[in-house]
């Protein structure tokens, strides 16, 4: 392991993962001194009844759920966040639980900012200094990174644009991965999320001076994906194990990626999602092998550091890490049921230009790191 001259790492999220971990949530929340939670949940998750499991966990506890807010699966807006913040105050809650996927998490984060500001208005600065109520996350879908980033995006209807905010208080203090909650994921979705985790982990370490803790999370995520992707497609008991492994991988990848939060594949996948509605997981899966080739020369040594996670056999001296990773990615693509090219996924060539434009608007785009030329090349290769 190569160490950089300087790094800083911060992740205050406590991971609670495994059987009946949801039952542990009230106890752990109690340690943060919180008493009454507002639960924000997405409508389709609400229908699955998972909220009942959460309520059950609070039945034998000194803490309670003040209110449950079920929201439509739509983009998070300022108006929507205000609604949650108002409910929070009216129902006298002191903390927030996001039960669901990325949107529930974003809604909770946005509401937390409004609650912290206590004025119903967003702060003018992207990076503000005020204390926010504690946030806890119960991902009910694989949630790469959402609970562990210090970033939130919300749409300001008044100003008609997306706004971004950063604060360490936006990171969930507890992340509960209960295997019961991710089971409803279909096999192809599971692969998509896993490939997304893989892409994020690979990009997290393609940095000039990678933080070794990030490398640790990335390696752990890669190892879990590589070893479990195939079993995740099977039926039966092993599948459950694999499912739990992939959910964990997804979270680790999020922790790794959130440290720099930039990457060609992540930005391009986000752009594809904005313009064509393509699921980012599928986009990541298609883009990963091509993106990897584009950067492998530049970051050969970093990739070598993680190569061990990709393969169980020891690399001989002549075999480069890059080659090993390439072989492993090919093998994964071989078992994956997802499309391998953008056109196979129904993207038409004329859309690519608009996608490239959208990529530049995403938070993961970073001019000093890659440019629009790279985006165009990647899209072309993957088409």
């Amino acid at each position, binding site marked *: *392991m190569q*160490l*950089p*001259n*300087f*790094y*800083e*790492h*911060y*992740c*205050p*999220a*406590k*991971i*609670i*993962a*495994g*059987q*009946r*971990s949801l039952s542990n949530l009230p106890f752990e929340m*109690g*340690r943060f*001194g919180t008493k009454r939670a507002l639960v924000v949940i997405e409508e389709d998750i609400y229908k699955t009844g998972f909220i009942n499991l959460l309520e059950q966990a609070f039945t034998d506890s000194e803490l309670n759920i003040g209110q449950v807010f079920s929201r439509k699966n739509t983009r998070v807006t300022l108006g929507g966040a205000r609604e949650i913040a108002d409910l929070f105050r009216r129902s006298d809650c002191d903390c927030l639980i996001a039960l669901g996927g990325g949107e529930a998490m974003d809604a909770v984060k946005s509401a937390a900012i409004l609650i912290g500001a206590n004025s119903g208005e967003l702060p003018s600065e992207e990076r503000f200094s005020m204390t926010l109520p504690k946030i806890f996350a119960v991902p009910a879908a694989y949630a790469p990174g959402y609970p562990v980033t210090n970033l939130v995006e919300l749409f300001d209807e008044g100003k008609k644009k997306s706004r971004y905010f950063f604060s360490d208080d936006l990171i969930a203090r507890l992340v509960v991965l209960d295997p019961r909650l991710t089971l409803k994921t279909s096999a192809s979705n599971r692969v998509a999320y896993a490939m997304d985790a893989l892409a994020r982990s690979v990009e997290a370490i393609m940095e000039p001076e990678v933080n*070794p*803790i990030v*490398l*640790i*999370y990335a*390696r*752990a995520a890669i*190892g*879990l994906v590589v*070893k479990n992707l195939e079993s995740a497609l099977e039926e039966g008991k092993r599948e459950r*194990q694999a499912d*739990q*492994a992939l959910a*964990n991988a997804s979270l*680790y990848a999020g922790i790794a990626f959130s440290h720099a939060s930039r990457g060609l594949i992540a930005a391009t996948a986000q752009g594809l999602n904005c313009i064509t509605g393509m699921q980012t997981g599928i986009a990541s899966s298609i883009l990963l092998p091509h993106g990897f080739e584009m950067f492998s020369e530049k970051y050969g040594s970093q990739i070598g550091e993680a190569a*061990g996670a990709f393969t169980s*056999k*020891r690399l001989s001296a002549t075999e480069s890490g890059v080659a090993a990773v390439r072989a492993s990615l090919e093998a994964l693509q071989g078992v994956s049921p997802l499309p391998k090219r953008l056109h196979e996924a129904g993207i038409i060539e004329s859309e690519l230009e608009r996608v490239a434009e959208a990529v530049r608007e995403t938070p993961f785009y970073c001019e000093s790191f890659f440019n629009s030329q790279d985006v165009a090349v990647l899209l072309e290769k993957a088409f």
Partner: protein
Amino acid sequence: MNMPNFYQHYCPGRIIAGYDALKKIPSLMDRLGCKTAMVVTDKGVVAAGLIKHVEAAFEGADCSIAHVFDESPPDSSNIASNKLAGLFKGYKCDLFLAVGGGSALDTAKGANIVISQKSDDLLNIQGAENIEADLLPTIAVPTTAGTGSEVTKAAVIYNEEKKVKMLFSADKLYPTMAVLDPKMSATVPPKITAATGLDALTHSIEAFINLQKNPIDDAYAVAAIELIAKYIVRATENGASDMEARFGMANAALMAGAAFSNSMVGIVHSLAHACGAVCHVPHGLANGILLPWSLEYNLPRVAEYIGQLCEPLGCEQTGSDPLEQARLTIRAIRDLEERLNGVCGLPLRLKDAGVSGDKLPMVARVAVNDGCLMYNPLEVGYEDALRVLRNAF
């Protein structure tokens, strides 16, 4: 790997590591909204001139050091903690800056508990394993690379009245920040460098094979083992000038600390704690001596896991038989320790570390009551403990 049935992972402190990381302390204090630091350390650290480095970092900053408390005893005690708490309030400080090994940090943690519970005596605090009040911020600056206490939630404080050790362990006790700067460990003598490094190695290996192993602690452990295999001999041999090796070891100790504060340690530590209590063998040294023998004890249950550590330790993976692989790992650890023995005369046997043979039964009896055994993959009874001790004697 198989997913564990259930696990937790928590490492909430901010990690700041670098060749001049000390310089960042004032800006870190600023981020925490703190102005006045109480430096907590011991006489050894002051004598080594390390506090000067810390003071230099404060030059021209708008926050300051109010006082340097250098009376942390080797085993931090309630008396030291109470005294520190009084001084802290007297100087109107708002942050603990613990510079030293585990005991300086423990003293600071003890004082922090006293202040946050609005008490003036640590002994008054009941049920302190569940500290719920918020503590004041603490920045930990380790001066040895081993304990990993800069990222752990425990504090061991000696009760001078009852003559017993009190264990505090609570999520609130994680230091707010850990600052790793290689020059802080540059003056550690070779033998202690080797022993503390082996402590870190033991933390990572035990975390990796314990009942509570999980994918993320495993990754922390493997990274730590890689760094230790690469740097421990260099840091021991040439510690005063090889800053790269010092930095590598500092990072390894932190990673190992993060791994074991969740996955915990096992038989090696329980035996080492007992050797410390009965025969005053330094912690790291005892761990180093007992590690290979204890791995042999655990071999029947966790050969597969032990075998997986072969590669991080830097030796060629050959066969596919897990048992053979595990033996290679143990061999690699013995080789490493023999090299350290060559470099600095690190003892390889308990009898060379000040343990007399007739004390072994006593050590075994103390060891089986050590809480660490709970996490060991195999159950350890008195006879088992004694057998391992005899082997290592």
